[in-house]
């Protein structure tokens, strides 16, 4: 008898009678202006929101960031926004991205209740490490992709299978030392969110 069989048998014997799968029928919070709420929440999670009218303005906003101006090694996965100082596809190993200073990445949907942006792996190019290994992260989203809550976000998301995707909400942080909030743990030290529209 394999462990698998033993475990499944034990679980079937032990479990209560099956019940139907519950559906969330509750009334989830909704915002009068979800886009504004999204931007406010980004600030609340220590991100830097920037609202711009179009792609060209997004490009200008990114290039105007202090972190961008000081950076030598940058990468963009969003055509038209910022530029890559290296050919990401030619990078052999993800570890070779260790000195990347700014990564510009696009995502959708963007969630107003928590300032999170869904980034599917397909938007990260050859190495998905790019979004977490870069010192500074810039997320580019569109206003029409803002949803109110996670319920709606999951309605819109289609997992790439096989694949990977992640909600990212603000820069990395920790409060493990005396509950003092420190921005910048192992992931990006800063997270600018450029919202187009």
């Amino acid at each position: 008898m394999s462990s698998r069989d033993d475990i499944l048998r034990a679980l079937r014997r032990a479990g209560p009678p099956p019940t139907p799968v519950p559906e969330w029928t509750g009334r989830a919070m909704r915002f009068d202006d979800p886009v504004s709420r999204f931007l406010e929440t980004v600030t609340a999670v220590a991100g830097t929101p920037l609202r711009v009218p179009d792609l060209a303005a997004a490009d200008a906003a990114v290039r105007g960031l202090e972190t961008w101006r000081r950076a030598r090694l940058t990468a963009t996965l969003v055509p038209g926004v910022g530029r890559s100082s290296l050919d990401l596809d030619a990078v052999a190993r993800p570890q070779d991205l260790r000195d990347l200073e700014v990564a510009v990445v696009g995502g959708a949907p963007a969630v107003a209740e928590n300032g999170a942006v869904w980034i599917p792996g397909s938007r990260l190019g050859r190495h998905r490490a790019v979004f977490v290994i870069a010192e500074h992260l810039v997320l580019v989203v569109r206003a029409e992709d803002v949803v109110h809550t996670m319920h709606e976000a999951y309605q819109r998301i289609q997992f790439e299978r096989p694949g990977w995707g992640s909600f990212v909400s603000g820069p990395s942080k920790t409060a493990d030392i005396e509950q003092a909030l420190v921005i910048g743990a192992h992931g990006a030290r800063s997270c600018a969110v450029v919202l187009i529209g």
Partner: protein
Amino acid sequence: MSGSLPVPPGQHPRAAARFLAQETRVRRHDAAGWHLRSNRDRGAASVPEWEALREAASAIKGHVLSRLADYLEEFERNAAQNGIQVHWARDGAEHNAIVHGLLAGRGVTRVVKSKSMLTEECGLNPFLEARGIEVTDTDLGERIVQLLGEPPSHIVVPAIHRTKEEIGELFYRRLGTPAGLADPTALTEAARHHLRQKFLDAQAGITGVNFAIAETGGVVVVTNEGNADMGTSLPPIHVACMGVEKVVPRARDLGVLLRVLARSATGQPSSVYASHFHGPLPGGEMHVVIVDNGRSAILARDAFRPSLWCIRCGACLNTCPVYRRSGGYSYGATIPGPIGSVLSALRNPRAHADLPFASSLCGSCSDVCPVRIDLHQELLAFRRELAGQGLVPLRKRLAMKAASLVMRRPALYALAGRVVRFLLRAAPWALRLGPGAAWARQRALPPGPRESFRDLWQRRAAGGEGGTP
């Protein structure tokens, strides 16, 4: 059980007394926990439908346990389609052997690990280290306690029991930071540099699993630090360890669960990263190890099954007035606090017979639990369990038998009451001896009125004032 716990099990009252004897330490620990509780309150209050969400989260978890084997098989099927290799472990020993086998078979000697209470439970780190595999815990709190050679004392904030000065001293010794540096930002920066090299050099990343999605065959790992993502996007091998109870039916169920998880843990509307893994890195491997280790036994028990709903948010620890004043180590268990007390007692009632009694049954834990586990009721139910198994101290059982006997005979009760009241009035020192000592050491005795209420009632009734006092 992980490594060596600093306090052996079964000693909560004594260990707690030692912990809180140091006033600055207990003040700080209590304030730290209450701070998290307050943040949680703010986070919860920002969601008008919070109580409905808790109900929904509870319902999802309750439902999953009613079809657990089916969902795990569905998960396995879909995970396999994603190129994920699924393994099954009956217990901690099998889990450790499987993980070790995977790593050793691929020549891995350097591993990074993000937070997983399951791997703590199984004692994975010492197992791997004894076999020549370096394991670096990458969650900052976990790394701190790892360098200190201690187990975590909280499931979300592992080093909550340490001051920044102590951590500064540790980093001075182990990471070469300047002596006397105790600023959290600077210390975190030092840890970032130190751990970055570990991530870059790692040959495999081990993570826990917050949720496994049956419908799509993926696993979700959430962090604030990004350590799970660093640990799984750099090395080509990802090993994810999960308890059987972590599976959820569908992606949309995460909408409910992720909305309550971070808010309950720290009050944030979400964790910084919530990564959904549906396969290995290109050219890499991904493994999921599904572990029972006593969970099927808990599943069989109606009264305690809800403890398997736990999503490891830590809210019950933060709100527990006892945990905050006694510290995680006084529990002598991998997971302390209210949920830890239930899970540990279930695993080993004899060793942990003290834990269901390390609670005033205030019920705050039950009110904060995002999946509505009736924790304080489970603690009470477990006391019955212990009494039934003869694991309640004889002294206490005899006292209760005697008390019950007296209470069943009103005349005897009235007499006993008269005696106690007399002693309180005339010879309180007698009551401060023996069992009374535990009361009277720090508290004044109650008054000893001449007449009990029933005496008064009796007297006035006899006095003929309309039959009532």
